[in-house]
């Protein structure tokens, strides 16, 4: 009996926390390696469609993003709710077909790449699934003219059962 009583009397022992920083640093390094910096604020709502044949986009440095979708709430107050195009982080506010802006955008982005990679530039099209193809076709025509021919239709991975689903 006296054994137990003695322990109780000493009270709670402090937990040794000297390894806590190590644990947290480990977590920190994990997140630093596994994630990428959020570079652009997307000002249009984009819900990309699902597809089964998607592949990972490699070499992020070669990729430029084109977003097409309806503006998010705080942007919609300025520009209305019609679908807009965003090039990397710049919102194209003009009406109609932004051939000029797209051409400039492609030239600007191509200029940033090293000489050897200039023809490997990938345009990632992040387009909302409810946008009509007219707008998409216009962008594709403009990209064709600007000779940015490698495009990537951004899509989420869709897992389908073997066999067919209806």
């Amino acid at each position: 009996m006296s054994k137990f009583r003695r322990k109780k009397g000493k009270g709670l022992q402090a937990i040794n926390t000297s390894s806590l920083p190590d644990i947290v640093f480990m977590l920190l390094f994990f997140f630093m390696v596994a994630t990428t910096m959020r570079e652009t604020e997307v000002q249009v709502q984009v819900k990309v469609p699902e597809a089964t044949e998607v592949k990972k986009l490699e070499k992020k440095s070669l990729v430029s993003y084109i977003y097409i979708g309806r503006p998010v709430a705080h942007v919609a107050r300025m520009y209305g709710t019609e679908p807009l195009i965003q090039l990397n982080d710049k919102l194209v506010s003009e009406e109609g077909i932004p051939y000029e802006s797209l051409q400039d955008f492609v030239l600007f982005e191509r200029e940033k790449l090293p000489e050897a990679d200039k023809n490997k530039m990938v345009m990632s099209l992040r387009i909302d699934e409810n946008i009509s193809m007219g707008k998409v076709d216009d962008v594709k025509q403009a990209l064709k003219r600007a000779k940015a021919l490698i495009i990537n239709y951004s899509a989420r991975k869709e897992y389908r059962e073997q066999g067919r689903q209806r």
Partner: protein
Amino acid sequence: MARSTPEVNGGSLADIAFLLLIFFLVTTTMDIDTGITRLLPPEPEEDQETEVQVNKRNVLVVLLNRSDLLMVGGEVMDRLDLKEKTVEFFTNPMNSVDLPVMEDTEVQFPPGSSSLLPPDGMWRGQVSKGVISLQNDRSTTYGKYLQVQNELVAAVNTLRNDFCKLYFDKEYDALNTANPIEEEIQTGIRKIYKMNISESAPKNIGGRN
């Protein structure tokens, strides 16, 4: 002997690390970009007026109208039947006269890479001359368009994968392009099953808008 330096209090180290951790949690994203990569056809030269004559049987017209209805080769079709149809179109298993011409072709693979190929690695067989013409209306929704695009790509990928498994006992996607032999295999398979999907200039299909 020098005075011993007082020990640094490490108690706040955890707090600092937590702060950094939370900063990274907030400012970074984890999503990996995935998508379907396609090549746009180059813009034709100004003076070049090319009207390529293609045999009618070599073309499969895939039409998406403004109400997102799919028509393949003249008949209305469900999206999920498209893959099968495309595979049939590209292989022409029954040697039908309505499906594309199969052309005798030789494709060079690395010698000795497969037991099913002759020792010099030359594949002799038939390659389809088929082209898929994908057409859409300006009012077609993008989601539907991509689904159709996906089915077409899926069909070609299946054919490539089956060939790769049969001859090289490997998934097509698992081929490592950094390895010159496997890259040659991939190039060879691409010659046999081409991604022949043409997209015509957009137009309004179905009259009134």
